[in-house]
């Protein structure tokens, strides 16, 4: 087998055994790669109502056919499980599919060891870490690593093995303490943050997985593959946006975002921060803090940063990162201009092993709740968080990771904090219990729809519809044509650039982007290449020929697209099985009622009527029914008929809830007519 390795590894932590399972070509054709295998396993090996932290819940690490090859930007790994963080708005006890995608080099090394996927089940009786040395797997005592930060623990493991080239995927103290939004890190600071996969890993008493692999990935048609990879690399080398990304890192998006006012400023109530040029500007940032760039496996761009604070209070502090999302959520979101402190916060969050978005959201929610008078020091055990208070923020971050005092509550995620305290539900900016990233859903409608429809919760990296941004659309007009057809494109350009705030074209755009992003995940490539800077063109130009040359299996582009659709559907089915459908595909009331506070789009809200239309339109583009459920036809077309009984039982749950007068956890807009 070429490109793929033909096997996956199943670890059973309860009995400390492992099993190597061969996979058939048909299986690969059906699911293509990492996210596909993961979604299949996570759906089929869990059940309705299962506790995500149940020992039998399968934690999957998957990588695709291009991971670890010469194809550029191919170092990604998808981690999936039932998510402890995300939940339905009906009841925070209802969970669904969760996944996160991380860079670094773990996926490639999994493949060098001979596995396309690693599935972890069971629960060790005491902390362990697992060493995978090609086909040999050993379970080792991790008591000395428990409570140790990510960086130190990685060094300890590498030193214990005497091999600095071993790749370690691990959790920080936050994961051990079951912080619901704990992340998994590899290569010191490449993290898979969202949906709390680190929490699942911690619940299994698994500190780390270390991999050493010595087997090469063979390529079916090496000459052709090399030629294609060079062509794609040349494209990346010459892409102006890639060159900018190299210089500024993903911080190049900060200025852009701030200019149109979408950065989640002040608990995402507004998106505009005045006077950031001297502090948050991309080049400025690099000049102040960048020690040296770092890259994921086989990526020529290297948007990764390594920060060194040279002067001031935090002089000498160094850490991997931060990435723009982290900066935005731990800086802009809590309204601080102390950028050195933001770096420290980002470094801490990484080392402690938490999702920087949700951690930032926890801080900013507390700040706004204080401001609004929802909570007082009595609720927080004497801690008071004011806007921009980075020092207390650091303390609180540490408390969250250790689950001490008020941190214990914040570790549950904003939606549960508000639910438990009984206040502030209206200021939790979330979909499916996951706080949204730093793009304001009132302004960019494609992202907005994406958040709501995403199976990950409020995150852009499932429906990466960046073509809606004026800059992206202009530089990639060919994509506009591809998405909307000649007629639609004409209309798109007529509305341009107001297009950004319109929902009309977004259902189509979202579906298209969703599938494209899914293909990138399936082959294990960085979505940035075909996404925000788009240097590599569309995936069809970029990765489809590479996929064929690497594997030697000539799937048609339609077949690959269908696989992507299958993956999207099975992930959706996972939520639907638990009854989370249309009532969760929406935003909190705040975004429909309260206008943007500041910036060029001041006063903008989402239109309720249009939203209801867009929801239905989106379902139609997928061939789903009016409740957002997968139809029998669709299931048969995608050869996932086995989900149909689950759809029925899921429908029962949602009907029951709609017919009851049970309130939603947070006030969210549910299209009229659904409830009595």
């Amino acid at each position, binding site marked *: 087998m070429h490109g793929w390795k033909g096997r996956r590894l199943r670890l059973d932590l309860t009995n400390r055994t492992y099993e190597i399972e061969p996979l058939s070509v048909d299986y690969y054709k059906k699911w293509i790669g990492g996210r596909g295998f993961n979604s299949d396993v996570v759906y089929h090996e869990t059940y309705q109502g299962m506790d995500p932290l149940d020992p039998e819940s399968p934690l999957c690490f998957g990588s695709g056919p291009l991971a670890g090859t010469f194809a550029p930007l191919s170092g990604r790994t998808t981690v999936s499980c039932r998510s402890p963080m995300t939940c339905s708005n009906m009841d925070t006890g209802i969970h669904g599919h969760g996944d996160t995608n991380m860079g670094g080099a773990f996926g490639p090394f999994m493949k060098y060891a001979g596995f396309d996927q690693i599935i972890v089940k069971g629960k060790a009786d005491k902390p362990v870490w697992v060493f995978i040395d090609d086909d040999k797997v050993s379970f080792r005592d991790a008591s000395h690593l428990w409570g140790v930060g990510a960086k130190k623990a990685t060094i300890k493991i590498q030193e214990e093995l005497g091999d600095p*080239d071993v790749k370690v995927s691990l959790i920080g103290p936050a994961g051990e303490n079951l912080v619901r939004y704990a992340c998994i890190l590899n290569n010191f600071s490449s993290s898979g943050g969202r949906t709390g996969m680190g929490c699942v890993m911690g619940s299994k008493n698994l500190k780390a997985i270390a991999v050493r692999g010595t087997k090469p990935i063979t390529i079916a048609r090496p000459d052709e593959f090399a030629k294609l990879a060079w062509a794609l690399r040349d494209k990346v080398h010459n892409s102006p946006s890639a060159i900018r990304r190299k210089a500024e890192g993903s911080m190049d998006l900060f200025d852009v975002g701030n200019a149109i006012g979408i950065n989640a400023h002040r608990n995402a109530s507004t998106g505009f921060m005045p006077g950031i040029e001297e502090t948050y500007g991309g080049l400025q940032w690099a000049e102040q803090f960048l020690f040296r760039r770092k890259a994921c496996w086989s990526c020529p761009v290297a948007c990764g940063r390594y920060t060194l604070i040279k002067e001031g209070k935090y002089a000498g502090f160094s850490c991997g990162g931060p990435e723009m999302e982290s900066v935005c959520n731990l800086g802009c979101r809590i309204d601080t201009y102390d950028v050195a402190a933001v770096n420290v916060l980002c470094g801490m969050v990484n080392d402690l092993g938490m999702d920087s978005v949700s951690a930032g959201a926890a801080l900013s929610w507390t700040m706004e709740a204080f401001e609004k008078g929802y909570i007082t020091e009595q609720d927080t055990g004497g801690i008071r968080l004011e806007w921009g208070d980075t020092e207390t923020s650091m303390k609180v971050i540490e408390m969250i990771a250790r689950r001490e005092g008020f941190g214990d509550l914040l570790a549950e995620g904003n939606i549960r904090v508000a639910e438990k305290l009984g206040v502030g539900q209206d200021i939790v900016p979330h979909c499916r219990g996951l706080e949204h990233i730093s793009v304001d859903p009132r302004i960019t409608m494609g992202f907005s729809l994406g958040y709501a429809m995403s199976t990950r919760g409020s995150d852009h990296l499932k429906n990466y519809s960046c073509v809606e941004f004026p800059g992206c659309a202009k530089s990639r007009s060919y994509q506009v044509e591809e998405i909307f057809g000649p007629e639609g494109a004409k209309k798109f350009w007529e509305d341009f650039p107001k297009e950004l705030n319109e929902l009309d074209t977004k259902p189509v755009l979202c579906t298209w982007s969703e599938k494209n992003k899914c293909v990138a995940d399936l082959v294990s490539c960085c979505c940035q290449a075909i996404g925000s800077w788009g240097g590599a063109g569309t995936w069809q130009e970029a990765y489809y020929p590479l996929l064929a040359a690497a594997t030697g299996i000539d799937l048609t582009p339609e077949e690959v697209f269908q696989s992507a659709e299958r993956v999207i559907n099975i992930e959706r089915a996972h939520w639907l099985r638990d009854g989370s459908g249309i009532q969760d595909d929406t935003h909190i009331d705040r975004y429909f009622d309260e206008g943007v506070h500041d910036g060029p789009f001041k006063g903008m809200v989402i239109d309720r009527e249009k939203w209801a239309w867009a929801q239905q339109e989106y379902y139609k583009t997928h061939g789903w029914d009016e409740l957002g459920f997968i139809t029998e036809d669709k299931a048969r077309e995608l050869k996932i008929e086995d989900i149909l009984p689950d759809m029925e039982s899921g429908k029962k749950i949602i009907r029951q809830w709609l017919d009851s007068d049970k309130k939603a956890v947070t006030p969210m807009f549910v299209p009229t007519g659904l409830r009595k």
Partner: protein
Amino acid sequence: MTLRQEKVIVIDPSKCVGCHSCEMACAMKHFGVCHPHYSRIRIQEFREVNTFVPVTCQACEDAACIKVCPMNARIRLESGAVVTDEEKCIGCRACVYACPFGAPVIHPENGKTMSCDLCMDDELGPWCVKACTMQQALKFVDARDAARAKGRDFAAMLKEQNEPPHQDDADFSFSFSVE
């Protein structure tokens, strides 16, 4: 020390980002597979301090590997590159031990050694260098230019540091540069 007239690969570790693209390119070029062990250029990772050093054969003028090979299997090509003649090599690794960089690496399939052949006369030039187009940590330059570009001539500098000192060269001690 005089340098040859040929072109050489010059390394600037301060620009290396540890993406391993060069390794992938090398493995692809010579074996048609992907794995760092199949590459002749290797990145030494010090990821905890985010420092990466690409190590490849510098084709030293007075190459230790040529002198210590019992089989005379380390040979210099027309291009200036020093490679292992696999017909003769018995895999004793003397060249690996003698090299101040540890540049010759073990052939993963036959246990002999291998080192950079500058991709012979491939029209793309050395693949590793091309793969580093964006970061410029690897450059393929005229050996004389490389020697002239002081401070950047990593090859010559390290080579000199690692050679037995001349007897009349009293001040050869290497002090710790950074506190």
